[in-house]
């Protein structure tokens, strides 16, 4: 039908359409007739729905060209073994079967097709390639790539589908904004009134579209740099959407908090990027074409050996995954000259990678771990994991559809997605960290959810908790389990958020559960769809039958992995115990929410009387999502969803041998997980039923008054409702110090640097003063002295100038006499005086005196 090369194009269309939508919608304020115009919403829905169609088409095309190998009945028995294990067992033999392998892409460019079974299937591995090159420096290249495997396709389909539902829902939910004079009852102006503003319907949809674009870019990303780019864009969209009610201080603060917390994570991400970039010299996940400038597919397609006269296949370089791990999925640990453990990089054909001088290229094991931790720090920020979880509950300031899309189904899932996508680069230490972070997060968030009373906050904490589960699953080696939960969670959490949105809409923006109760009579569709979500997240099932909601399957898979991991590494038993307990707590607080809101008697009659079921445009998405929340995981680990996901599982995930030099933990193999599966499922189910039962007893039946319990455990209650004091702690630890340091910096500028300059300038002025005095006193003084003395000498001679003629004559006479005396008394004779006299020929008789002198 479509050729495999159409797949990236389909996804690109699905990816770029929302961007186009954004570009048009953001100016809708100009081209729309008035603020009551719904065109922008229609456009947004059309874009994302078309995106969904394209994604589905891409998935379908991909299925055709892989011969639906992922879903083949043998796919489990053999697909699992044959596709991931056989890679480990007989690497280099069964080239094409290990379709999930990342290290062999280039090989396909050269290798003859030697596998009859797959000969007619054109797609042999992840499709990788380049859309567009951003910049190139020597051998370094940064580009917008794609990396398409079944995980990408599933994520694309899921994101576009849920986004379509949420967009639809939002056209109803946001309809209050369709006015020229929106009154915001939460904002008070100085003159005591409420805040009025024009509606911002179109702007909401513009940002939703931009968000979808960013999220899809993140999913399709073929290199970690591109992930980072869209990671940030997702962050900024989240910023805009959380702060949608810009006039609310709490909203803008929450938006800032979300963005900055994410940036803290991104700081780690950046460090990870730097390490990878420096040591690997590429960001690309899979094989890439280093010469690519425009659109091109580098690998993933079966390439026939070039015939005579045909152009050879493009040169293909090994990507990150292939460099870090061989085709057996193991790190090549070695010692460098100093005895430090290093990881040797490999090429596609499993030979070692050499640099220009012929040395082995390697990266110290520690740095690979740091890189992994850094990237995971980004995931912590984005997925609101401990210790950066505090932004997510505050992010509930945004409109509810935003919470549903951004903060449950997609953006926060991005962290988990990246952790899974980047799995091959994680060392055992990183995985263990991931597991523990997930474990702590799951528990902490669940405990806070117990005491939260805001319906959206409960859901927010449950999101954090469930994300912790996913991280835990990935950390203990349950790659497929974590992602499985990601998908199922996306469905039921978006459902629950939308349902809560429907409640909030129906109750005229009342979010406090203590004011609700008995609402199921007023809004049955909302109540029962919500119940489906609650059952799903609680992980309930009927024991002994395959009847189970999606959450059961996925959570079961995670718990099974955790149990197997605990068996393999008994010292890490907490990784099993805590999630099990959390599973019980989850069931408890979710049913608490449902009973509190929908069951029992109305507690606030004002709210109850005015509430109403939502319009059809909002309930339809609820019903669709409820069906999917219940059934998307049908078949569990034998079902199509799980198989599709695990088709992309990195080689060697199941049984990653502990690296000899740094062994700490052993990851359980698939068999080990399988062996404990039923046991784990039973434990999980017991916990879930326990939680549900308690919730029913307390909130449904009322055997125990929650208020009493609250009084009994008031300190614990305060501690929990203060969210474990994280906000206070961060305020003291980071926010205030930053402000203090920044004021220091300013003061340093003002006092020290400028102070020094001012000191210099004052010093210069001082020196100038001294200089002036020197000039005036010494230099000018000397000159003046000379002048003065000359003057005074002149003055003293004035006395002689009497003006009396006779006196002058006397002076002349006396002076002449004096001169005579002088001349004749002191210079009577001398050569100088004799010489002129010799000229005068004086006769001896007339002038006797010379005669006398000559004697």
């Amino acid at each position: 039908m479509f050729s495999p090369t159409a797949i990236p194009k389909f996804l690109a269309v699905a990816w770029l359409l929302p961007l186009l939508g954004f570009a048009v919608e953001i100016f809708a304020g100009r081209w729309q007739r008035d603020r009551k115009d719904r065109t922008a919403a229609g456009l947004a829905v059309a874009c994302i729905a078309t995106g969904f169609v394209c994604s589905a088409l891409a998935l379908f095309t991909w299925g055709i060209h892989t011969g639906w190998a992922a879903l083949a009945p043998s796919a489990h028995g053999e697909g699992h073994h044959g596709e991931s294990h056989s890679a480990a067992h007989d690497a280099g033999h069964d080239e094409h079967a290990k379709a999930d392998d990342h290290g062999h892409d280039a090989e396909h460019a050269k290798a003859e097709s030697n596998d009859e079974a797959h000969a007619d299937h054109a797609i042999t591995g992840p499709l990788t390639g380049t859309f567009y090159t951003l910049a190139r420096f020597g051998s370094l290249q940064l580009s917008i790539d794609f990396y398409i495997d079944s995980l990408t396709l599933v994520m694309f389909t899921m994101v576009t589908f849920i986004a379509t539902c949420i967009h639809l829902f939002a056209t109803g939910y946001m309809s209050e904004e369709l006015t020229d004079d929106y009154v915001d009852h939460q904002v008070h102006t100085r003159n005591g009134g409420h805040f009025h503003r024009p509606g911002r319907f179109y702007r909401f949809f513009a940002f939703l579209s931009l968000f979808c674009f960013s999220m899809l870019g993140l999913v399709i990303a073929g290199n970690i740099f591109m992930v980072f780019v869209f990671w940030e864009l997702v962050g900024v969209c989240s910023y805009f959407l959380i702060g949608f009610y810009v006039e609310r201080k709490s909203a803008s603060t929450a938006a800032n908090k979300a963005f900055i917390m994410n940036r803290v994570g991104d700081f780690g991400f950046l460090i990870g990027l730097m390490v990878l970039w420096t040591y690997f010299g590429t960001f690309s996940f899979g094989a890439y074409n280093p010469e690519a400038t425009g659109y091109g597919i580098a690998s993933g397609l079966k390439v026939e050996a070039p015939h005579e006269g045909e152009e050879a296949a493009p040169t293909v370089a090994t990507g990150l995954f292939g460099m870090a791990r061989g085709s057996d999925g193991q790190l090549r640990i070695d010692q460098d000259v100093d005895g430090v453990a290093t990881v040797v990089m490999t090429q596609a054909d499993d030979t070692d990678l050499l640099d220009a001088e012929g040395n082995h290229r390697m990266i110290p094991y520690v740095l690979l771990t740091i890189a992994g931790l850094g990237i995971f720090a980004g995931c912590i920020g984005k997925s609101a994991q401990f210790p950066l979880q505090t932004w997510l509950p505050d992010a509930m300031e945004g409109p509810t559809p935003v919470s549903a899309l951004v903060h449950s189904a997609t953006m926060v899932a991005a962290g988990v997605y990246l952790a899974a996508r980047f799995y091959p680069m994680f060392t055992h230490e990183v995985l263990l960290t991931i597991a523990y972070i997930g474990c702590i997060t799951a528990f902490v968030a669940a405990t806070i959810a117990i005491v939260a009373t805001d319906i959206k906050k409960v859901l927010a904490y449950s999101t954090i908790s469930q994300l912790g589960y996913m991280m835990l699953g990935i950390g203990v080696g349950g790659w497929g389990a974590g992602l499985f939960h990601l998908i199922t969670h996306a469905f039921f959490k978006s459902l629950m958020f939308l349902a809560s949105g429907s409640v909030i809409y129906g109750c005229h923006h009342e979010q406090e559960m203590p004011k609700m109760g008995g609402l199921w009579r007023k809004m049955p569709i909302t109540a029962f769809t919500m119940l489906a979500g609650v059952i799903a997240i609680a992980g309930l099932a009927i024991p002994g039958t395959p009847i189970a909601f999606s959450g059961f399957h996925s959570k079961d898979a995670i718990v099974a992995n955790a149990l197997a991991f605990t068996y393999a590494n008994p010292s890490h038993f907490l990784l099993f115990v805590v999630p099990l307990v959390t599973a019980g707590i989850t069931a408890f607080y979710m049913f608490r929410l449902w009973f509190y809101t929908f069951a029992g008697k109305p507690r606030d009659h004002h709210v109850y009387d005015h509430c109403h079921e939502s319009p059809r445009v909002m309930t339809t998405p609820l019903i669709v999502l409820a069906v999917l929340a219940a059934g998307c995981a049908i078949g569990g680990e034998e079902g199509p969803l799980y198989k599709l996901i695990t088709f992309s599982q990195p080689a060697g995930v199941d049984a990653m041998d502990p690296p000899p030099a740094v062994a700490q933990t052993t990851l359980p193999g698939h068999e080990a997980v399988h062996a404990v599966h039923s046991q784990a499922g039973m434990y999980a189910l017991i916990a879930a039923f326990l939680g549900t039962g308690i919730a029913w007893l307390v909130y449904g039946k009322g055997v125990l008054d929650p208020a009493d319990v609250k009084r009994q455990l008031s300190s614990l209650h305060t501690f929990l409702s203060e969210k474990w004091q994280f906000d206070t702690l961060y305020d003291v630890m980071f926010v205030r110090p930053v402000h203090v340091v920044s004021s220091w910096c300013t003061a340093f500028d003002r006092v020290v640097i400028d102070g020094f300059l001012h000191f210099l300038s004052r010093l210069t002025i001082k020196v100038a003063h001294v200089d002036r005095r020197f000039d005036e006193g010494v230099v000018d003084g000397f000159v003046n002295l000379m002048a003065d003395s000359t003057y005074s000498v002149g003055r003293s001679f004035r006395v002689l100038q009497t003006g009396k003629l006779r006196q002058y004559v006397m002076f002349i006479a006396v002076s002449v006499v004096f001169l005579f005396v002088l001349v004749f008394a002191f210079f009577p004779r001398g050569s100088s005086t004799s010489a002129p006299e010799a000229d005068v020929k004086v006769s001896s008789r007339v002038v006797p005196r010379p005669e006398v002198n000559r004697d």
Partner: protein
Amino acid sequence: MDPLTLLTAIIFLPAAGALALVAFDRKAEETMRYFALAITAATFMLTLFLWREFDSAKSEMQLVVNLPWIRQWNVNYYLGVDGISMPLILLTSLICLLSMMASWSIKKQVQGYLMLFLILETGILGVFLSLDFFLFYVFWEVMLLPMYFLIGIWGGPRKEYAAIKFFLYTLAGGVLMLIALLMFYFNSGRSFDLLHLAAIGQGKVEGFAFNPTVQIIAFILLFIGFAIKLPAFPVHTWLPDAHVEAPTPISMILAGILLKLGGYGIIRIAFPLCPFGAQYAAYALVLIGAVSIIYGAFAAMAQTDFKRLVAYSSVSHMGYVLLGMAVWKINEANGAAVGRDYWLMGMNGAMFQMLAHGISSAGMFFMVGVIYDRVHHRDLNKFGGLMQLMPDYSGLAVGIFFAGLGLPGLCGFIGEIFVVLSTWNYSKTLAIVAASGVILTAGYILWTIQRVYLGPEYKGPHAEDITPMNGREKAIAWTLLIFAIVLGVYPEMMFKVMRSSMDALIVSLDAGYQAVSAAVETAQK
């Protein structure tokens, strides 16, 4: 058009315009404004024409003009363009054009203002185009005086202080440069030819050499001179004062172009003429760059004056420029660069960061100016709610501020990320320090946006004067935002101009360092 005419026209057209302004009647302000705008627009067109003539595949100097000027001293009227100066020339003429458009807010002594403005533009373009060190120095100083008067006459309340501070700082830098200039002149057999001097510095000329001591001293002198302009910590304190007091269009030029002269000087003169000195001081440069990033960001966070905040953000952003240029790691054994491609990336990133910062900071200052023209104050705590009152303005401002924040898809991101990514190869610690800037930058920019644009209502004085942007203001803001987006999405537009020159520069610096250090070793034996 032959290079002589073209380059001379680019440099001296604004100055000619300034002369022509004398002929206007003092009262014909509007006519004079349009005339000056036409001059800057024509200059911009000429630079676009220059870009068309420019062949980015060539790495050497192009469109070279070399005429004797002062024969006795061997000073030449020596001009040329390469991939390093080309983007900056475009940036200069663009920002000058936009600032001229923003100059309608100047009401006092319009004639004098426009003349000084145009002379300033001549000075800047002259610096970017000259290849003769003496000529470079002359233009460098020519730039200084108009700026002094522009701040000192049309500035804010403390304009004299700011103008003198600016003048003295820059003059001090100029003097250091002059000393270095003379050092080169007398060590090179009396030459001011930058290319020839660079060849000597890189040990390519028989019979002449700048020995390591000369190189180190000259580099330090030049570096301090250029670091003042950049500005780098701790010689940055003229910047906040100058910006706060300068009128809006002058702030735009100051941040958008003048700061780039520091970076350009380092890359055009300090590095090529003394590669040995540059390598010797590389760690200090990276350190200063990293400290500037963090320090500027911290200081920005504590400001309550809107313009001062943006000024400190410039200090922070220009830190990346310094950082990117200096990530030159060598193999101690043979002096060859280690991971040269990373250095190349850092260099390119630094150049790009200059362009990006030229766009984003000019935009930020313009945005501050727009609101200042209306409400006549800049106290961050007395804004709020502008999103309601001036939606277009706020939207554009948020876009431009995000460009400054380094959001992907906007220009600031490319420069910052390229520089940061290339740093780890040089120093792990400093790379981490530099990377932590992303948190602080997000912190102060978002906080600013919150205080100014978000919130329910405007809290300060002159609320009644808040009117939507007029067409002229919108045109400026849109131009800047569009450039920010284009550069962010298609950085290759500039990278392809720079590529071959940058490659050649890196290669010659690397070889130059090796040549000089080899000569030193031979001498020691």
